[in-house]
Structures are given as structure tokens and as C-alpha cells.
């Protein structure tokens, strides 16, 4: 959902197999209206 180029399988593949105790990924997509 967040970004057409990063689907679940790609995200999980990027995390998998890293030599680390723990890895987390957050992807944001924001749409804003602002009136001042």
C-alpha cells in the first residue's frame, strides 16, 4: 500500500537474513492540506 515499489515480499526480503539482533522498517505516506 505505501509506495508502489515496496510490496510485502520486498520488505520482508530486505529484512530477512541481516546480521542483526533486530531490524524494523516503517514506510509512511502522507497527504496534507494546510491553510494559514
Amino acid at each position, binding site marked *: *500500500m*505505501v*509506495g*508502489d*515499489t*515496496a510490496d*510485502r515480499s*520486498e*520488505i*520482508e*526480503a*530486505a*529484512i*530477512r537474513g*541481516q*546480521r*542483526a*539482533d*533486530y*531490524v*524494523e*522498517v*516503517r*514506510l*509512511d*505516506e*502522507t*497527504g*496534507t*492540506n*494546510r*491553510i*494559514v
Partner: protein
Amino acid sequence: MRGGWGFVSFNEPSELRKRVEEAVEAAGHVGKETSQFAEVAPVGDTVPLELKNDPRTVPLAVKKKMLDRYNETILSVDGVTSTNITYSDAHKRVLFASSEGSYIEQERIDVVSRLSATARKNGDMQQASMSLGALNDFSYVETLGETARHLGERAVELLAAPYVEAGTYPVVLDPILAGVFCHEAFGHLSESDFVYENERMKEIMVLGRQFGQPHLNIVDGAAVPGLRGSFRYDDEGVPAQKTDLIRDGILVGRLHSRETAGKMGERVTGNARALDYRFPPIVRMTNTYIERGEMSFNDLIADIDEGVYARNWFGGTTSMEMFTFSAGEAYMIRNGKVAELLRPVKLTGNLFTTLMNIDALGNDMDFNQGGGCGKAGQMPLPVSNGSPHIRIRDVVVGER
């Protein structure tokens, strides 16, 4: 890795694998101990929007026209010389994935606004303002006409209002100012990264210590629905909870990320939050509030011969256990009745003395949902804070 963190933010999703490797490499350079995380079961979930009134369905031109009308309402009050109105709505979708198998998608819309009126006369200037906010709901923005008029009228009334005579008074705080006090003066001291890294705070914030009278209960929790600090999972994928901080006057809990909970041997509370993808999650509040008591407002003020009724918030600072808050609106209390409007006042004190001096709690409840919380450069984070009306003995009150 080995207790060290590596963090990378980026804007190109196709670079994900490379950026993850950079973060892992950075963690390897700084890690010098053992990684400690409180155990949490992996979660797979999709949290859709729980919309009440969707601001995305209202054209920007219609929003602008609505705000123009409020602006004109404020300016129509005789004596008002300038106004300031800001509005924003932000629809955010967040995906969280972890090497432990969590995969969570969440959506939210924050709708925030601030209105202020300034009045001038003979070189004197007074201001009245209000910050408002809501989660997933545009409705309140459609009904701000009376609020706008009231702000204009109050700014003008303040030009003729007297200064408070500085001194120590019994003070009644409205739910909004009491909520801000609860968040700023107490809530931040409950954030465990702050406690864990500060020897003096470890000595002060001892679980089991009495912080208030037995009627005092303070809670934080994103699991309380429909408020700006509400969510289903925090930014470490921990399910939202409701955490008792003070129960029956005793300090019983504090707010944790998985790391602070692991290091301090306490349970996770779901309080790791990141402002957005550019920041790592840190320990933050969600919805922080004083639970309601049993007294009516009239009973709260009935025994006060001379005191101050402080409403709404303007600003404030805290330094460890000391605080200073500016009220948005204040009145004298005389002989058990709300009396004359005062020019802006500030309230100063020691948090722990002040908590002990809360001697009565109202039977009402309201939440401040405007603005946002700032910490470590991450601002404004959506939070709420609330309270019933509260009565505090012996508060130092001065002019702002």
C-alpha cells in the same frame, strides 16, 4: 545490534534493501553491550480508517471559505485589530515490518486548527486563542462560529481586566489546563528513557512512592478510542494499552518502549512512537489524563473565599520537577463564586508538592486535543490530555 541502533531514513522505496544494510552496519559500529527487548508476540494486522466525518471529502476552497468566515467573525468584534487562524488535515498511512515477523498497516487523519484574536488600545495589547484537534473527524471545524466570536470578545475584555495580585491561592483548573499540566509536568517524567538515563529521576520516580492523595488516578493509553493519541499499535508494533501511572495516589507505572521495558525489567506499554519515517521511535505519551472524581464544579469552588479559576492553556515550561504554566483565561473566585476576568496569569510550583495538594476532583471530563507534543526534535506528535476540573491548594500565581 549489541545494544546499538542504526537508523536510516530515505524517500526512495526501491532503495529499501541497501538502506536496511546501511542501518545494520551503523548499528554494528555503536553496539557495545547486549540488545535487550521486552518480549512481544509478532502481529499481522491491517487497521483501516475509522472515519466519522472525512475531511478529504471537503474541497480545499470550501475549507478556506469556512475559515475566512471565522476570521471575519473575530474581526467584526469592536476592538479586535488582528487575527490568526491555522488549519491542517493530514492523512497518513504507515506500514511497519520487523525481523520478528510483524507486518502492520495503519491509517489515520489528524485534523488540527488554532484560532487567535488580538485586541489593542492605547498601546496595550491582549490576545485570546484556542487550539483544537480531532482524529478522523472534520466535524468540529464546521461549528467554530461561536468559538471565534467568544475569542474576539475575550481579547477585547482583557484590555479592561485587572492584573491578579501575585500570591498563593487555592486554584481550580479547568479540564484543558489540568490535562496540559498532567502531560507536561508529570507525564514527561513518566517516560522511561528519561528515567533510565537520569540518576536523579531514578531516585525520584520510584514505583510505590506516594505522589498524591488517595483520590488521584493518572492514566496514559492509546487504547482509549477516538482521541488524537489513539492508535491500535505503536511504532514498534506493540498493541496499544492503557497504563496506570498513579493509582490511588501511588506511583504504579511508567511508559516504555520495548528497549526501556527490557532494560528496566518491566512490562511493555506500547509507547514507542515516531513522528514520521524521518525519526526513530522513542518513548512518548498517547492520551494522558487524570480520572474523574465526584464533585460538581459548584462544590469545588464553594469553600474558596479568594482563589483563582484558570482555564485553557497558553504556554509553559518545565525543568525537572519545577513547572510554570500560562493559563489561556483566568478569573478570580470570591466567596465561592466565579468573579472578575483577570489578565493572563501564570502558575508556578513543584510538581510533587502540587500533586499532593490536589484536594478535590470534579465529576466532569474533557480532553485537550489541540497542538501536539515535542520531544527530541520530534514535533508535533498527536497526543491528547485530559482531566476533570481539579482544585489545588497553595499555588503560586503571578501575572504573565
